[in-house]
């Protein structure tokens, strides 16, 4: 055991720390503590803005979870976060840093919309499955576009996936400001509204739609793959030690491509669910940064399937809460600050977790 100690000035106590195995329960503690600390930290900025942090957080919480309407809206935001979060979790499992969920989400939305625009005459029942497939496939291809430079040209996938985000967003702008713009839309940058059979049905109060079940199904599939399937075993091995995985006969290149296809596909499915379930059309700034928030969702959940459900609802709540504090004069970007600081505390806490810290008397009691 590697242990170190420093004597605290005054000489009576010393602080000892030694490395240890990180336990599962301490992981949960770190996640919860990170959220709490991030809120406290963000409170400083709120206070600097001349507002009472407690009041602001109360408003956020009430807006997000306090009413049936708010809760439903939180779940609406949680759907894309959950799907994108699942997507990036797949990639992060094998240390592929896909930060391109935003772009993959957007092309998924574009592809699903393309089905409605270019194939108006299909049987009504076939639209949702075809749109879903198109969205997932487009997202997957976008993921592959980021992965091939990595596997065959040694390009850092962070850069390639991020550059593709900008390209996807510009493509979206081109379409909704240009050829796909609704002629009857009073110049609004968006396509015509989808027909009812192209929309995911809503249920309960508000805008909550069937995409929720796509998300929950995704969690089940993720769990099944990761903990029950042979393929998930290969991914876990690859994530833990790529060299050992290679010696077990696993092709690293093939796995990266496959994982990025799935990862992008999930984000693409989220894009389809958003246009088909919420906005009912493709429009300008379809995503308030779901793809980036998904990174936090994944880390907060420690890539755990059930944790992803909790963290996506939580982050959805932060977004909805962010909207509700706009009314009392805080910008919605408040939610980004909370998210970013959660990540800081998470990674800091994650490292501290692998140490056992103890405060001890320098000499044995009564030994003087």
């Amino acid at each position: 055991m590697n242990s170190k100690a420093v004597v605290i000035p005054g000489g009576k106590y010393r602080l000892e720390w030694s490395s240890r195995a990180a336990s599962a329960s301490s992981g949960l503690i770190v996640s919860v503590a990170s959220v709490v600390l991030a809120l406290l930290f963000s409170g400083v900025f709120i206070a600097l803005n001349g507002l009472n942090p407690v009041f602001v957080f109360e408003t956020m919480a009430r807006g997000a979870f306090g009413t049936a309407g708010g809760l439903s809206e939180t779940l609406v935001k949680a759907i894309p976060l959950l799907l994108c979060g699942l997507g990036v979790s797949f990639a992060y499992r094998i240390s592929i840093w896909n930060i391109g969920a935003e772009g993959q989400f957007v092309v998924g939305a574009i592809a699903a919309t393309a089905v409605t625009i270019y194939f108006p005459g299909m049987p009504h029942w076939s639209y949702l499955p075809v749109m879903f497939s198109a969205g997932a496939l487009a997202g997957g291809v976008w993921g592959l576009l980021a992965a091939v430079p990595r596997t065959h040209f040694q390009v850092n996938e962070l850069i390639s996936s991020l550059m593709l985000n900008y390209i996807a967003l510009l493509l979206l702008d081109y379409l909704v400001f240009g050829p796909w713009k609704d002629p009857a839309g009073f110049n609004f940058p968006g396509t015509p509204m989808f027909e009812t059979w192209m929309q995911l049905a809503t249920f309960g109060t508000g805008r909550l739609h069937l995409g929720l079940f796509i998300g929950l199904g995704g969690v089940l599939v993720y769990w099944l793959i990761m903990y029950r399937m042979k393929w998930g075993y290969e991914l876990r091995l690859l994530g833990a030690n790529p060299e050992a995985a290679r010696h077990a006969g696993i092709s690293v290149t093939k796995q990266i491509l496959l994982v990025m296809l799935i990862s992008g596909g999930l984000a693409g499915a989220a894009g389809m669910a958003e246009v088909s379930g919420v906005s009912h059309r493709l429009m300008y700034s379809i995503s308030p940064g779901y793809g980036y928030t998904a990174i936090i969702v994944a880390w907060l959940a420690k890539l755990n399937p059930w944790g992803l459900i909790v963290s996506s609802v939580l982050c959805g709540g932060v977004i909805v809460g962010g909207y509700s504090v706009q009314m009392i004069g805080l910008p919605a970007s408040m939610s980004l600050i909370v998210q970013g600081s959660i990540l800081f505390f998470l990674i800091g806490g994650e490292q501290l977790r692998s140490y056992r810290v103890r405060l001890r008397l320098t000499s044995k009691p009564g030994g003087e």
Partner: protein
Amino acid sequence: MDFITALLVAALSAGTPLLFATLGGILSERCGVIFLGTEGAMLMGAVVSIMTLSRTGSWPLAVVMAMLVGAAFGVLHGVLCVSLKANQTVSGMAITLFGTGLSAFLGKPYAGLPVPAGIPKLNIPVLQDVPVIGDLFGSQNVLVWASFMLVIAMQAYIYRTGWGLKLRAVGDSPSTADAMGIQVAAVRYGHVVAGAMLIGLSGAYLVLVFSPNWMEGMTAGRGWIAVALVIFARWNPVRALLGAYLFGAFEALGYRIQTVTDAVPPYFLKMLPYLITILVLMIIGWNNRRKPSGQPQSLGAPYYREQRT
């Protein structure tokens, strides 16, 4: 001004923020720490400088504040990645997310407002009258000149000083450096913080000179392009200068083509820098497939001293 000259002038202007950010990235990566928070730190530098400028009216103070806020992110990255040995990639992503959010939050009241008084330009009498060179350098602002000096200073520092030697040793083989009595953690902290300061400065240039009003997310991926440019530059300041202007030219080319023809939708022209970034990195990767890329060998890896006592 003809097309080419105008393009060159625009390239210089668009390339300078990239240059500062790339130089910052080089300083950090040379000691073995990847800094991927460039986008966030640039945005913070930009917003802090515009806040300072509109409150005090002093541009030097605005620049200093931008560098200080960059330094704060550098310290944060250092604590997480050097002291706590956290994953450098994730820490960088956190800085980018946080910086994007905080800059939008702080910048809300300043969005769209014109920038009061810009950074002074240096008018050089004789040079101004030389055809192309006059257009480029005759009346350039002080930060551009500062960037030239910085390239020369960094080139000399890295390759011609004892400190630079230690920096390279820490980046390539921290265990050797440690055995030779070099304080690995101190060198890493110092250079990560200095690099982050330059990134903050690049944000200040962006908002004070390049596009003088604050917009949410105004860096538009420049931070990430700078990360790519560090690789393109093979961690060498002079090559960073070439790379930054090359990318500046691509960015400018998009706007220039729009003034000439409207055959290509502007959205596609705006995609150029991003597409080219990926393509250039692919070409570099292909060329490097059988030889070392020039990357500091300990890049991304925290240093654990091997010791049993």
